């Protein structure tokens, strides 16, 4: 009987699940609702120099990478298994597409975090 490799993906899913349970709602609220409208969050809060400074700082890079990467790994795990729930027979191709896209997102994020420079 083959040992499943799910533990790898489940661990990433779990880490992303905890992180998103902690901060995804507030991040969505801030970046997607109150900052664009300018309610409870001054327009200057997300100004270019301020956000750039955050992205150039090593800790900022760590947070940005963790958020984007783990959110993606959490989501693709659920989406991949959700296809099975919907009766779609998702095979190895779907698995590679799902986790591959999360990996691609992670690598692109890492590259961009280097591209923005260091503070």
């Amino acid at each position, binding site marked *: 009987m083959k040992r499943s490799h799910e*533990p790898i993906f*489940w661990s990433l899913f779990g880490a992303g699940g905890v992180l998103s349970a902690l901060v995804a709602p507030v991040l969505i609220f801030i970046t997607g609702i109150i900052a664009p409208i300018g309610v409870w969050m001054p327009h200057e809060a997300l100004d270019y120099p301020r956000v750039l400074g955050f992205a150039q700082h090593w800790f900022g890079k760590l947070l940005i990478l963790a958020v984007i990467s783990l959110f993606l790994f959490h989501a693709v795990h659920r989406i991949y298994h959700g296809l099975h*729930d919907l009766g779609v027979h998702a095979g190895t191709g779907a698995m590679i597409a799902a986790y591959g896209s999360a990996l691609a997102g992670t690598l692109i994020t890492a590259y961009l975090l280097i591209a923005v420079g260091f503070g």
Partner: protein
Amino acid sequence: MADTRTIEIEVLRYNPEKDLEPHFQSFQVPFTHDTSVLQGLQYIKDRLDGSLTFRWSCRMAICGSCGKMVNGRPELSCHTFLRDYFPGKVRIEPLNHFPVLRDLVIDQTDFFEAKLPSIKPYLQPKEEKPLSEGTYLQTPKQLQDYYQYSQCINCLLCYAACPQYGLKQEFTGPAALALLHRYNADSRDRGWNERAELLNAEKGVWGCTLVGYCSEVCPKHVDPAHAINQNKVNSTMDYFGLRKLLMPRGGT
């Protein structure tokens, strides 16, 4: 009796010798405050249609025989009461996710002949203990570690509740995996390695997506969802070679 009322019971009928597909049949059934769904079925069989076929035995929620879908929910029919559905109708179907043999009777062989034996449901102590050495001793805490998971009456409500079992019969399923945990958690047992191959496989704990409905419907509060998902952590630790490091009793 002044407090006798009448309720409509709609039952799924299927005769494999005559029918290509199941169909519903309705009956008007008198009931009082304490009439169970099972007693409703028995009234139909005794007075209205003797051909209605269904399993039951103890009438007191311990034998696990009388599981049925009642208005779309897996229930023990002896443990569910007609008064709670009145004035609506009661729709009774065989437990989901199992083949229907006849009327409300399902084919249970997958569970009893495949899933249950596959988890090695017996104590595997380190050494055979001769009778002369007396009984095994267990503290109350050691009993508590597995007691809840030993309460399963094999009623199969959790399998009827589990969409992953419904979608893929290979999945070992809630009751069997809860029982697997029951043995691993028993202080007298050293069988972790024997059960690990199944536990770590796709059809072991990894077939579960924590829908959680199994634990919702279990009449004995076994909480199979807890048993399975605890073991996702164990399986993960085992996968990364951490289990032997961190677990007591050297990982068995």
